[in-house]
């Protein structure tokens, strides 16, 4: 390659864990050799901004107006925007707030006297506001997947991960099915390619990598309900890391079904569909309007 890729790594609201994960890469020095890292405020002192980038990796979730302004600025600065980590790709833990009453959440943190001037927003993944070219999932971002991205990009290929659920890798590693052992695992509905470190340590998948696009939610929910898991528990699991994306996908699956196949109003599907319909419309959150 004649000229090295101009790369920037930035973050908006988040824990910086994903950016740190880049520093923890075993192949970090090789990667730094192969690219021109122009900006990485978490990792280096001199950072160039306001210029053209080939790739910007962005961590974090949009929770306030400053995040949104930063996000839009980064988008304009780069040819490719890559969302790294569950905050940027799916909203992660902050986005649980989308499923709660805003006033109650505010009350749990702020004094009654402060509530007057309080106007909290619904946290959203970055693709609610700008075009995202690639996603690197996980909480924190999966190191292997980041490396795969770098290798593919350096080769001049378009980065693509075949959509497979967590179950695929559990089987490859001969990790017997946790669902078979009666443990509620989100493997069948979660996007794979993470080397299944949680199931390998007997901890069920909690869906930090967001939805497996081809998941069959209706079958998954009814399987869990048959195993005696109640709806609220299922909803809590689904909301934890990628509630926004899960709810939208479930809404889509529901819309795709014919009238005769519609579930009863109290099903798990509906629990999410209402939220998706009322609050999770893309770029149309009521709290983001005005001003």
């Amino acid at each position, binding site marked *: 390659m004649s000229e090295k890729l101009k790369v920037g790594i930035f973050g908006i609201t988040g824990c910086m864990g994903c950016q740190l994960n880049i520093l923890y890469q075993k*192949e970090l020095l*090789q*990667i730094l*050799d*192969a690219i021109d890292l122009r900006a990485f405020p978490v990792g280096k002192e001199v950072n160039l901004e306001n210029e053209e980038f080939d790739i910007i990796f962005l961590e974090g979730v949009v929770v306030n107006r400053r995040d949104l302004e930063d996000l839009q600025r980064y988008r304009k600065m780069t040819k490719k925007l890559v969302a790294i980590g569950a905050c940027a790709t799916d909203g992660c833990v902050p986005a649980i707030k989308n499923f709660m009453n805003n006033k109650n959440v505010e009350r749990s943190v702020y004094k009654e006297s402060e509530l007057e001037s309080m106007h909290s927003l619904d946290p959203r993944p970055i693709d609610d506001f700008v075009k995202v070219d690639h996603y690197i999932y996980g909480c924190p971002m999966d190191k292997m997947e980041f*490396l795969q991205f*770098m*290798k593919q990009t*350096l*080769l001049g290929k378009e980065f693509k991960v*075949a*959509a*497979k*659920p967590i*179950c*695929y890798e559990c*089987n*490859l590693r*001969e990790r*017997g*099915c946790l*669902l*078979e*052992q009666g443990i509620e695992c989100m*493997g*069948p*509905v979660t996007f794979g390619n993470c080397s299944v470190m949680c199931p390998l340590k007997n901890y069920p998948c909690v869906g930090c990598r967001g939805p*497996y*696009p*081809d*998941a*069959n939610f*209706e*079958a*998954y929910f009814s*399987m869990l309900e048959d195993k005696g898991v109640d709806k609220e528990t299922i909803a809590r699991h689904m909301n934890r890391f990628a509630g926004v994306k899960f709810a939208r996908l479930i809404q889509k699956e529901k819309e795709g079904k014919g009238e005769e196949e519609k579930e009863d109003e109290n099903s798990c599907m509906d629990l999410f569909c209402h939220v998706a319909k009322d609050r999770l419309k893309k770029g149309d959150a009521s709290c983001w309007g005005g001003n």
Partner: protein
Amino acid sequence: MNRLQHSSDGLALGKDQMHRLLDALKEYGELIGPVHDGQWLRMQTFSKYEELCLKGISWFTSKEYFFPQRQVLFQFDGHSLTRQEEFPKRVLFGLRLCDLNAIAVNDKLFLEQEPQHREYKGYREGLTLVGLWCDEVQDKYCFCSSMELEHFYDICLYDRGDYYHIKAGSEKGQEILEKLQLLPNGPYEKEFPTGEMKLSTKDIAKFFDKNQVWQKGAKECLSCGDCTTLCPTCMCFDVQDEVEVDLTKGFRIQKWDSCMYKDFTLVAGGHVYRNTRLNRFKHRIYHKLVYFPQKFERYMCTGCGRCIRGCPTKIDWIGLVNEMEGETQ
């Protein structure tokens, strides 16, 4: 494998003498057999007879040992290109007839037609197959009695209480047994056990349009691919290139894939051939019972039942076929 004409004559070996057989087998490679880890039965390395669990059918298959999930097809380094030349020698011990037949199925696909699969051949030639006859049905999901299985092994063990009746099924098996100098045990034949699960017909081509019934299965399908990764005859793979960051070294690898995923039939231009869950669900079963026999004159499925046992929602496709067959009567 140079197979022998099937005969019921065999030799006797006491269970307390099994170390003699295992010692002889060790010369043919690393011993791999069913070992229970408290939760799952899987095929793994062992050294003593006492470590084995010879009851039940292993949750995972032994296909990893002759068709690795990640197989390097070639490796490049600067300007040189190398391929795997050395293949391990292994003894698969205690395989059930379903898993043994699965190897026969894969032989048809990878060895008995041109071009042969080079790496499969390498692993396969290093294998010694020691079977264990099922005295009774091992699990409620077994339906092997419906699948017309054949005697396919180097050596087969029949449990006779405190001793095994041992038969050779190939020249290699005969050679191993000759070294042991065992006492002849005369003829012994045990009928193949039949469980509750039975496939009423294997001619399912006529049901191709009965989508209403197939849909019942597809509706339950999570598209998780557990059925294909646990199946001993599912051999579909993807080929990918892996490189080092400095782009000078790399591998071309063959990785297990599954027809249950949409991306499996994704082609250049973005078209997906089997886009609906129904099409994917049906395709796997039709491949086992219709498409493969058309080409190779034997059923691909060997009735081990892992696709139902390992399915998170336990989709009973046997039941669906039986239901459709029942309707035609």
